[in-house]
C-alpha cells in the first residue's frame, strides 16, 4: 500500500521532470534545427531566454526522482544502474555537456567559441532524452533482470527501447515547440509564433506516429504489456491520443489558448499509462513488484512525508518564481517556458498588473510560505511542550 504510494510519487516526479525538464531538452532540439547564424538567430534567442531562468529548478526533479528510486526501491535501482549502465553514462555525459554548453555559451567571446558551445548544448539536448528513453524502454520491455550486476548491451538496443528513445526526443521537441508558441505570443512576435506552430504540428505528428509504431511493436514483442495498455490503461491511452489530436487541431485552427496544458496533459497521460499498464511489477519479466522491492516501512513513510514537505514548501516557491516572472519582475530573459502549462503565463501581464508590483499570485505564494513557517513553528512548539 505505502509502496504503491511511493511508486506513484516516483511516477509523479518523473512526470514533472518530463513535462518541465523535457521541454528544456526540446528547446535544444529546436536550437539545433534552427539553421545558420543569421536565420536561426531569432528562434535561438527566444529558446535561450525561455530556458535560462528555469532549467536548473526543472532539472532538480531528475535528481529528486533518482533519490526516491534508490531510497524506495534500492534493489531495483541497483539492477537498473548495473544492467543499462552504458546508456545512463551517455545520458549523464549529455547532462554535463548540455548544462556546461548552455551556461558557457553566453560567456565566451567570439563567434566560433559560441558556435561550439551552442552546438554542444544542442547535440547533447538531443542525445540525453534519447538515451533516457532507451533506459525506460529497457525497463518497460522487461529486459532488466532483478539481480543484474553487469551491463547488458542487448537490454536497451531492442526495437522497443530504441523506438521509445526516439519517442522521448519527439515528445521533448513537441512540448518545447508548444510552450515556445506561448513565449513568442507573450512577446508579440507573430513570425516566431507561426514558426513554432509549424514545428509543434510536425513534432506532434511525428510523436503520434512513433507512439502508434511502439504500440504495434509491443503487440508483437510484448503481448502482456500491450494487453494492459489496451486494457486497464486504455482510458489514459485515449486521453493521450485525444489531447495529441486536439493540440494539432487547435494549432491548425490558429487557436493557441489551451494548447500548453493539453500538450502537458498528453505527455503525462502517456507516462501514467505506462505506469498503470505495468502495475504492480517494478521490473517486468521478473517477480520484482512495488511491494516486495520496497524499502522498510519507515523509509517509505519518511519518503511520503518528504514528498508532502516538498509539495508544501517547493510548490509555493515555484509559484513565487512563476508569479514574479509572470509580472515581468524577473523578465529579462523572460520565459516561464517550462513552468507554465496552464499557469500564470505571459497573458497575466496583460491583465493590468504593473510590472514590478507583486500581483495576487506572488502574494498568495508569499502567504503560503509564511503560513508554512507559522505552522512549522506551532508544531515544534507543541512538540516541545
Amino acid at each position, binding site marked *: 500500500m505505502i509502496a504503491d504510494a511511493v511508486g506513484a510519487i516516483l511516477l509523479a516526479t518523473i512526470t514533472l521532470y518530463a513535462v518541465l525538464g523535457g521541454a528544456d531538452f526540446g528547446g535544444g532540439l529546436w536550437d539545433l534545427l534552427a539553421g545558420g547564424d543569421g536565420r536561426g538567430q531569432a528562434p535561438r534567442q527566444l529558446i535561450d531566454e525561455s530556458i535560462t531562468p528555469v532549467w536548473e529548478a526543472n532539472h532538480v526533479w531528475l535528481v529528486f526522482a533518482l533519490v526516491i528510486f534508490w*531510497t524506495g526501491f534500492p534493489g531495483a535501482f541497483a*539492477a537498473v544502474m*548495473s544492467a543499462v549502465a552504458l546508456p545512463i553514462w551517455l545520458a549523464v555525459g549529455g547532462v554535463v555537456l548540455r548544462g556546461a554548453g548552455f551556461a558557457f555559451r553566453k560567456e565566451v567571446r567570439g563567434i566560433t567559441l559560441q558556435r561550439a558551445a551552442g552546438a554542444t548544448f544542442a547535440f547533447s539536448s538531443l542525445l540525453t532524452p534519447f538515451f533516457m528513453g532507451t533506459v525506460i524502454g529497457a525497463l518497460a520491455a522487461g529486459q532488466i533482470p532483478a539481480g543484474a550486476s553487469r551491463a547488458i548491451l542487448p537490454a536497451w538496443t531492442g526495437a522497443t527501447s530504441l523506438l521509445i528513445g526516439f519517442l522521448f526526443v519527439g515528445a521533448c521537441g513537441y512540448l518545447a515547440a508548444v510552450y515556445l508558441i506561448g513565449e513568442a505570443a507573450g512577446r508579440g512576435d507573430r513570425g516566431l509564433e507561426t514558426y513554432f506552430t509549424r514545428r509543434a504540428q510536425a513534432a506532434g505528428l511525428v510523436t503520434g506516429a512513433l507512439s502508434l509504431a511502439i504500440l504495434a511493436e509491443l503487440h508483437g514483442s510484448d503481448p502482456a504489456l500491450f494487453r494492459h495498455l489496451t486494457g486497464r490503461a486504455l482510458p489514459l491511452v485515449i486521453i493521450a491520443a485525444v489531447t495529441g489530436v486536439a493540440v494539432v487541431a487547435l494549432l491548425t485552427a490558429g487557436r493557441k489558448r489551451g494548447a500548453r496544458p493539453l500538450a502537458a496533459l498528453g505527455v503525462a497521460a502517456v507516462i501514467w499509462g505506462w505506469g498503470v499498464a505495468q502495475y504492480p511489477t517494478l521490473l517486468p519479466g521478473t517477480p520484482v513488484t512495488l511491494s516486495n522491492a520496497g524499502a*522498510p516501512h519507515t523509509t517509505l513513510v519518511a519518503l511520503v512525508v518528504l514528498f508532502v514537505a516538498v509539495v508544501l514548501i517547493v510548490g509555493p516557491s515555484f509559484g*513565487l518564481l512563476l508569479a514574479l516572472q509572470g509580472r515581468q519582475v*524577473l523578465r529579462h*530573459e523572460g520565459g516561464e517556458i517550462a513552468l507554465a502549462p496552464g499557469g500564470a503565463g505571459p497573458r497575466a501581464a496583460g491583465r493590468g498588473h504593473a510590472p514590478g508590483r507583486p500581483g495576487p499570485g506572488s502574494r498568495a505564494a508569499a502567504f503560503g510560505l509564511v503560513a508554512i513557517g507559522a505552522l512549522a513553528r506551532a508544531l515544534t512548539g507543541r512538540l516541545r511542550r
Partner: protein
Amino acid sequence: MATTLGFHIILACLGIALPTVVLIAEFIGLRRSDEVALRLARRWSQAMGVLVAVGAVTGTVLSFEMGLLWPGLMRRYGAVLGLPFGVEGLFFFLEAIFTAIYLYGWRRLPGWAHWWTGVPNAISGVLGAMSVIAVNSWMNQPGGFTERGGRILSVNPWQVYFNHAAIYQMPHMILAAYMVTGFTVAAVYAAGILRGRRDRYHYTGFAIPFATAAVLTPFQIFVGDTAARSIAADQPVKFASMEYVAHTSRHVPEWLGGVYAGGHIWAGLKIPDLDSLLVGFGPGTRVTGWDTVPPAQRPPVVWLIHLCFDVMVGLGFLLLLAGLWALVVWWRRRRLPRHGLFWLLGAVSGVAAIVAMECGWVVTEVGRQPWVVYRLQTTTAAATANGGVLTSLSLIIAGYAVLGAATIIILRALARRWRRGDALETEVPYGPPPPVPPPSRPRARASGRAERVSR
C-alpha cells in the same frame, strides 16, 4: 567518484557559503548606501550564477554515479542513506528557485525585498549541506537501522540523520565551506591589491569575505580538535593512521610530518607524549593503535592520511595567523595591514583553504578504507562489477579537467570584463537584467540605490 566528489566539493562549498557572503555585502551596501559593496554583491552573484550551474550539473552526475559506480552500496543500504539525500533534494529545489529569483531580481525588486529573496538561499545551502554530510557521517558511524541477512528490516530516520559522527562532521564541514568561500573570494582581491590595485573596491572586496572566514577560523580549529578526539574514540583505526599510532600504548608521541614505511617513520618531528595529551588531556592516556585490527582491515596508505591530516591542521593555523594579524592591526590602527607579506598571505589563503579542505576529505575517506560503510561493507563489495571502470574514470577525469578549466577561464573573463568597467554584464547568463528602463516602475525609488550603482 572520488574525482567528481573532489571537484564537486569545491563547488558545493561555494554554493553553501557564497550566498551568505553576497548577502553580507548587499546588507552593508543597503544599510550604509555603500555603492562599492552593492557592486561587489552584484558581481559576486553573477559568479554565483555560473558556479551554481556547474554545481547543479556535477551534483546530478554524483547522484547518477551513486548507482552507476556503487550499485552494491545502494542495493544494500539505499533505503537507509537515501533519506538524507531526499532531504537534500528538498533544499536543492529551494536553492535553484531562489537563486533564480535573487539573480533576476536585481534592480527589479525593491532593495530589501531583493535581499530577503537571498535569505532562503543561504539557509537552504547550510541545511542541504547538513543532509549530505549526514550521509557521509553515517558511512563513518552507521546506525539507526536493523539488518538481518543483508536485508534492512527497519530504519529510524532521525538516528540515521543525526548519527554519532554527524555531530562533529556537520559543523566541521559547514565551517570549512565558509572558510573556503571567504578565503577564496578574498584571495582574488588580495592578488589584485598585490598587483597595485589599491582602491576602495579591492579593499572592500577583500575585507568582507576575509572577515567572514577569519572570524570562523578559531571555531573551526576548536571543532576540528573535538572531531579528532571523537574519531579517536569512534574510529580508532582512522585516528591511528592520522597520528601514526602503530601499537596501542600510553605516552604516545605526536609526529609532525614524516613518512611511514616498513615500520619506520622517516623525516618526522617527534614530540613526546603530545598525542596522548591531545586525546585525553593527560600524557598517560592510552591511544588505540592500528594493530588492534588485522592488516586487511587497515587503511592502505597510512602516510598519505597522516600527511594530509598534518597539512590540514597546519594550514588551519596559518589561516588563523592571517586573521589574527589583521585583527591586531585593526585593533591598534583601525585599518588593514599594509605589509606585503600579509597580502601575500591573503592571496594564497584561498588555495590554502581549498587544499586544507581536500586534505581533510582525504583523511576521512581514505582513513575509513577498506570500508565504505564502517565495519559493515567493504568498498570492493559496494563497487560496480562492470568492466571499464578505468576507462570511465579516465574519461571523467578528462571531462572534469575541461569543465574546471572552462569554469576558471569564464570566471577570469568575467573579472576582466568587470575591470574594463564596461557594462557587458548584461550578457551574463543568470546575470541581472540589462539596464533597459522598463515602461512603468511604480517602485523605482525603492530600488533606486541599486540602480545608480549598476550604471
